């Protein structure tokens, strides 16, 4: 039936939301005909990780769905993500045909449209726009992030889009309203019950004639000593500013800012349909990739940067919850952390006189390898060059004396942004690691030629360096120096290889897990058995990749890139390398999951995982991943026999 009002109103609803807003007209009608509507009361689980691959694509119609951290997850305000009407979930799980990572829960009474998985797949086949939306969902996020980073402050275009949304997308809650003769007491009770800060007073045709906010209670009711049984019309603000639902978020932001309002009634043809608040506008734009980037790009105080740091964590938790994979996620964390760090350095550098100095901020360790997870400490240093004789120690000392206060302040600011200070003091603010190019070269020479365990440990951390901010040519010069140095020192390479082979994958002879047990800090004497995913997991891949890369003079520091490039140069089997890379990413994903679950307090145990808590499938993949690590080690042992 072409004029079926149920389908017509659904099509009209979908038209307002991406990707349906750009979808082919005929397909939209067919899509609507395949939908059914279901109801979820507050607290009900809409989509659960235990339920396996989702049977439907859910499109939130009204209400509030939250993406909860999975069971046992540490709950902080930043890690709960709220979906707005019109949002789809979970595109990822459907595309990948796997269960969602975290439960989607109705936070208030919610209606969702459900599209059966068969129709979803048919739509993928038939609608180029929908296919693009689904397959490019993450890719576009990453592309946007890179583009935004290149453009830095010029990210306004993408932001503009969010702020050009009509208010009917933002003010989606049913408005709390009453007529003018409503007793004040009733009106206040209604506001309290709905937990809103304002009530709109309407006439018989539901046109707003006044507004009363929680803010008004103090001076107009409490201080004025007014009786609560009087009509609300006595105390309301008459003829309030309103906006039509077709007005944009920008219009609302402007009105709110100009008039100092907190709540603006939204109308369709004069009839009340919603209320937009300052908070709605803020929430709409903040914890998105664009929003986070914008927050970072504009932050110029320690407080603002600290806020940006917590936004980054909230965004990552959200993306992880949506099932985004480890490789993309660690890249994203790295990209955002890089942006944040660069911003911190820029802002702090401007507070110091560094005129005439050429310097470059270096990242070491996992940050240098672009493999950051949450529990990563700061590992950084400075490399600089001064005019005149590079070997002149006095000149270098003078330059370091100017750079150190800046570097120390940057270290402190980064700590406030959620990147903890390095317990080993490997930081740019430490005079030991704020060196001239010449001094770094000499230091690297010493580590390669020296055979002490300490020198080896240092080389493992420092040789994974990467330029983060400043004059990158200094870092390139140091990399070129290292690449000339290492291949000619077989003794160093053999030591590095033996170091990489020291830790064995935690697999027994019959390939079951070998578990550790921590009894030291456990009160009842028996700790839970665990695998250390960093020490006995990720490190196996990272250390092997480093040996292959340094031996072949490869510039890359990212372990996956090192292995892939080494595959070309060192006759490693490309298929085997691909499997090793997948295995490495799986271990990283488990680490990330454990860290998100543990929350901020649990950094110490963040890499510990009891395999018994994994699903059967994940347990099998972990076993296979550790077998891949073993294969990689066997390959390394061929080149460097013990």
């Amino acid at each position, binding site marked *: 039936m072409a004029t079926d009002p149920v389908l017509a109103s659904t099509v*009209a609803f979908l038209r307002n939301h991406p990707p349906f807003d750009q979808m082919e007209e005929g397909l939209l009608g067919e899509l609507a005909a*395949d939908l*059914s509507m279901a109801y979820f*009361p507050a607290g009900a689980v809409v989509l659960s990780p235990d339920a396996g691959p989702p049977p439907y694509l859910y499109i939130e119609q009204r209400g509030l769905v939250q993406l909860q951290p999975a069971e046992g997850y540490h709950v902080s305000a930043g890690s709960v993500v709220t979906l707005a009407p019109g949002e789809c979930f979970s595109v990822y799980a459907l595309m990948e045909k796997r269960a969602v990572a975290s439960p989607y829960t109705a936070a208030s009474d919610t209606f969702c449209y459900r599209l059966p998985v068969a129709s979803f797949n048919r739509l993928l086949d038939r609608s180029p726009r929908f296919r693009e939306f689904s397959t490019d969902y993450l890719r576009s996020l990453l592309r946007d992030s890179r583009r935004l980073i290149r453009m830095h402050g010029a990210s306004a275009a993408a932001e503009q889009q969010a702020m050009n949304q009509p208010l009917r997308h933002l003010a989606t809650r049913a408005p709390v309203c009453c007529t003018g003769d409503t007793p004040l007491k009733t009106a206040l009770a209604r506001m309290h019950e709905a937990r809103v800060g304002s009530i709109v007073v309407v006439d018989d045709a539901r046109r707003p004639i006044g507004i009363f906010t929680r803010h008004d209670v103090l001076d107009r009711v409490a201080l004025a000593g007014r009786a609560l049984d009087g009509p609300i019309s006595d105390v309301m603000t008459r003829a309030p500013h309103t906006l039509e639902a077709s007005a944009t978020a920008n219009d609302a932001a402007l009105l709110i800012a100009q008039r100092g309002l907190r709540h603006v009634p939204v109308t369709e043809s004069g009839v009340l349909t919603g209320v937009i608040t300052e908070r709605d506008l803020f929430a709409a734009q903040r914890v998105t990739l664009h929003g986070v980037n914008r927050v970072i790009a504009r932050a110029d105080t320690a407080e603002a940067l600290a806020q940006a740091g917590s936004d980054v964590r909230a965004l990552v938790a959200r993306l992880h919850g949506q099932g985004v994979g480890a490789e993309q996620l660690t890249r994203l964390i790295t990209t955002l952390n890089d942006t944040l760090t660069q911003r911190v350095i820029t802002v702090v550098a401007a507070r110091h006189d560094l005129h005439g100095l050429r310097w470059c901020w270096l990242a070491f360790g996992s940050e240098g390898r672009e493999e950051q997870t949450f529990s990563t400490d700061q590992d950084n240093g400075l490399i600089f060059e001064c005019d005149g004789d590079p070997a002149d120690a006095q000149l270098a000392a003078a330059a370091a004396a100017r750079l150190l206060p800046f570097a120390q302040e940057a270290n402190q600011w980064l700590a406030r942004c959620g990147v903890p200070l390095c317990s080993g003091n490997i930081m740019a603010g430490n005079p030991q690691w704020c060196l001239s190019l010449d001094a770094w070269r000499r230091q690297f020479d010493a580590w390669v030629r020296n055979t002490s365990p300490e020198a080896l440990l240092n080389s493992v951390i420092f040789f994974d360096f990467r330029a983060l901010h400043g004059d990158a040519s200094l870092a390139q010069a140091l990399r070129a120096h290292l690449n000339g140095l290492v291949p000619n020192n077989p003794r160093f390479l053999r030591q590095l290889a033996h170091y990489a082979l020291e830790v064995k994958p935690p697999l027994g002879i019959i390939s079951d897990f070998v578990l550790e047990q921590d009894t030291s800090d456990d009160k009842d004497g028996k700790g839970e058995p665990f695998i250390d995913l960093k020490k006995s997991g990720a490190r196996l891949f990272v250390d092997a990749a480093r040996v292959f890369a340094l031996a072949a003079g490869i510039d890359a520091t990212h372990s996956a890139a090192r292995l892939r490039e080494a595959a070309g140069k060192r006759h490693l089997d490309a298929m085997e390398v691909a499997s090793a890379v997948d295995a490495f990413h799986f271990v990283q994903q488990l680490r990330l999951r454990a860290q998100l679950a543990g929350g901020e307090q649990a950094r110490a145990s963040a890499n510990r995982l009891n395999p018994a808590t994994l699903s059967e499938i994940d347990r099998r993949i972990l076993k296979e991943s550790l077998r891949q690590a073993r294969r990689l080690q066997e390959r390394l042992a061929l080149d460097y026999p013990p």
Partner: protein
Amino acid sequence: MNWLRRLWGGRPALSDAQRARLQACIDTPRDDTATPLADARWVVVDVESSGLDVFSDRLIAIGAVRVQAQALPLAGSFYHVLRQAAPSSVENILVHGIGGTEQTAGLEPAEALLAFVEYAGGAPLVAYHADFDRAMINRATRAYLGVTLRNRWLDLAQIAPALFPEHAKNRRALDDWTTPLGIVNLNRHNAVADASATAQLLLVLLDRALAQGLQNVNDLLSMERGQRWLGR
């Protein structure tokens, strides 16, 4: 048990094909009331009429949607305008928006009603203030098809306060229930749009009924009958 009762007496003029279709309906049993609530199907109905008098006013349109297994499929709704000899009053047209031309161009009443009887099948029928819809439909089927529907009826105006006693005092009309739930009806007094809004209320009530431990269709019907006994 069959869900249509043929009335002996009046013999409406039906074609042979229509008689055969009607007979097929008469031979279909009603849905089992032992069906678990989570699986049950329902047909949610709303009618538009020339007024509110069930004895003299005419049935103008029937809208209906299906609910099955606690979900409301958007496709396959039912809507027919019954052809009227003369349009209803202007005031009345303003209520439901079905204009004079549309009324006189509607489907032949016996055909529209037969289509509805087929659509309803043996499912329990649901409406808000169901007595009115029931009376209007039965008077029309009696006149044009010579039968009355024996489908079970569930009146949401009765069952909603029983399941949500906390709201029983201040919610009377359908809008009183749907508005706080955020159920948007862009086309009030269009029979399908109203049936769809009613069906969404049914989804909420089914969820509540299950949460309160009701098991099957019969439990819900019994609760509604208990509510009628009490009177409100």
